[in-house]
């Protein structure tokens, strides 16, 4: 507990941000997100949008893998489902983007439920393999159902429009991506304050005794798959609005591994962990690229020589963090906070 606050009663304990200081930080963060497009250039906003999209998808995977204990390598493919749904609706129907994104979420959720069906019988690596198989099948569908998906050349779609104005530049699309990301993060955090989130964690920790407590395993495992792929579907939809060109190669298996790495680095079973992991995984390669860019005026060959080094450094950083703090970045953050809360008293 923070020094100097004594909880008056246990109801206050149930709040998401349990101190005024935390609530203050939250408000400051949201204010910063609102101010951002007015203060920074397109490239910075471009990166922030990318981070936010990855946060949505990573949080979805965290619900399934980090909180429910079901390993999935299908997250990118579910994003693909959402992206194609949005593109098709935007091209053929021209419906409002919010509707398209919701349909994308539900479409991906439906696919997620089907992919999740084996989860009652198989776990761990076997389930991971089943989700890889599903990714391969989805990729095949994207590439070969030419009349709908445009085959290997994919789809180009018009931008989203909002009250007549088109959202084209990153600082415009940002106003779609940012609020949706914030709402979805609150949704995910809320989930774990209720019986549904507790049931997920129970299934992760000991699924057989969860049953004796009245938790219907299949229902909750499928629900977790559905929520997780809903998040992926919406993230995919946002991705589609952001890039406006979708091909079967947009959502490779490697991207699913990227999301899995993000929750492992950030912290499995922690909403904050998913956020930090997504930021880390998106930004570190960018920062490394920038550092190489800074070198190139002094050292003309920098880009050619340093590109492979960049990838190695990225990998090494991931491994370093895993060894340094297996509980993830979220745990490092918690330790820092604890230090300052108890300061100046030693723990």
């Amino acid at each position: 507990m923070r020094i100097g606050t004594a909880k008056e009663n246990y109801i206050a304990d149930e709040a998401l941000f349990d101190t005024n200081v935390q609530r203050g930080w939250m408000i400051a963060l949201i204010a910063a997100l609102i101010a951002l497009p007015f203060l920074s250039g397109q490239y910075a906003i471009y990166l922030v949008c990318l981070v936010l999209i990855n946060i949505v998808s990573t949080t979805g995977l965290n619900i399934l893998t980090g909180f429910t204990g079901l390993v999935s390598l299908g997250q990118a493919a579910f994003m693909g489902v959402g992206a194609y749904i949005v593109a098709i609706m935007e091209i053929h129907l021209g419906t409002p983007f919010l509707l398209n994104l919701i349909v994308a979420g539900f479409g991906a959720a439906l696919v997620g439920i089907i992919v999740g069906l084996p989860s009652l019988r198989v776990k761990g690596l076997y389930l991971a393999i089943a989700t890889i198989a599903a990714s391969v099948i989805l990729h095949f569908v994207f590439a070969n159902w030419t009349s709908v998906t445009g085959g290997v050349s994919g789809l180009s779609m018009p931008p989203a429009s909002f009250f007549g104005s088109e959202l084209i530049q990153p600082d415009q699309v940002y106003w779609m991506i940012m609020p949706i990301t914030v709402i979805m993060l609150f949704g995910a955090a809320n989930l774990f304050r209720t019986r549904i989130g507790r049931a997920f964690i129970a299934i992760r920790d000991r699924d057989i005794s969860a049953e004796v407590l009245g938790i219907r395993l299949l229902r909750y495992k499928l629900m977790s798959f559905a929520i997780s792929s809903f998040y992926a579907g919406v993230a995919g939809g946002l991705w589609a609005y952001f890039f406006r060109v979708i091909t079967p190669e947009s959502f490779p298996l490697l991207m699913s591994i990227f999301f899995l790495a993000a929750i492992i680095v950030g912290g499995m079973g922690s909403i904050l962990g998913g956020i930090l992991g997504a930021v880390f995984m998106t930004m570190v390669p960018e920062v490394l690229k920038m550092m190489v860019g800074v070198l190139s005026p002094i050292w003309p060959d920098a880009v050619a020589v340093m590109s492979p080094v960049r990838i190695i450094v990225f990998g090494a950083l991931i491994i370093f963090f895993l060894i340094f703090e297996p509980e993830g970045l979220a745990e490092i953050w918690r330790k820092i906070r604890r230090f300052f809360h108890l300061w100046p008293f030693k723990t």
Partner: protein
Amino acid sequence: MQTTEVSNLKAPPSPQAAERDILSVEGLSLSFGGVKALQHVSFNVKEGSVTSVIGPNGAGKTSLFNSISGFYTPNEGNVNFLGKNVNKVAPPDRAEMGMARTFQNIALFKGMTVLDNIKLGRHAHLKTNLLEALCYFGPARRTEEALRKEVEERIIDFLEIDHIRNSSVASLSYGLQKRVELARALAMQPKILLLDEPVAGMNREETEDMARFILDVKEEWGVTVLMVEHDMGLVMDISDHVVCINFGQVITEGLPHDVQAHPDVISAYLGSGDVATLRKKFKAGR
């Protein structure tokens, strides 16, 4: 028995309750490959009683509990709960009907705090749906706050675990973990509570506390208790009815002291290990 939301928690047992069988096991048989863990086991549990199942290690007590709670599917026989045959009822539905249990080797959720473990017990009786959960404000919040209040006032207070409510269960002593498991089972609003070795591995003081809690559960909460226990002292002190099994069969059942004095029971215990300690255990029961 009333089924109003809160009042049935601590409702005293109705006068005729002691006459009714809340649970009856008929001709239960279960085998694992060649091992016959249970052979035609039959007995009844009277509503409002504390019924104990005793027997040496490997006698089949845990297997019996697992069959009652639906964990294992018996090869033959019936389990009737609240006058209904529950053979085909899945474990979560048995839980919802009012069957709660604890495990011999504690089955708490290590990734959660004590409080969340206890709240989890109420799962089947809460109605929060996915949409409400995602929004939280409104129905989900009211549900959670009411649950928190009840858990605090009725369960955490009763079991004297205020000081550890926000601890992670992994950090607790064995005795406290057993107590948290009991708390979680009570949060299930059970009609019958199945306790598998509730005091195994506890010291004398912890055992006495647990005995007191079990009696209070019966008397104040009106919950029937079926327990497996090795500690003969505890069994003799708090049981209304004792069933002794060995090699998967019921040897005898009856009032605690009649069962204790039964020659087959004595030989079952004497035949299964260190005679001196067993004699001591028996003496402790007096």
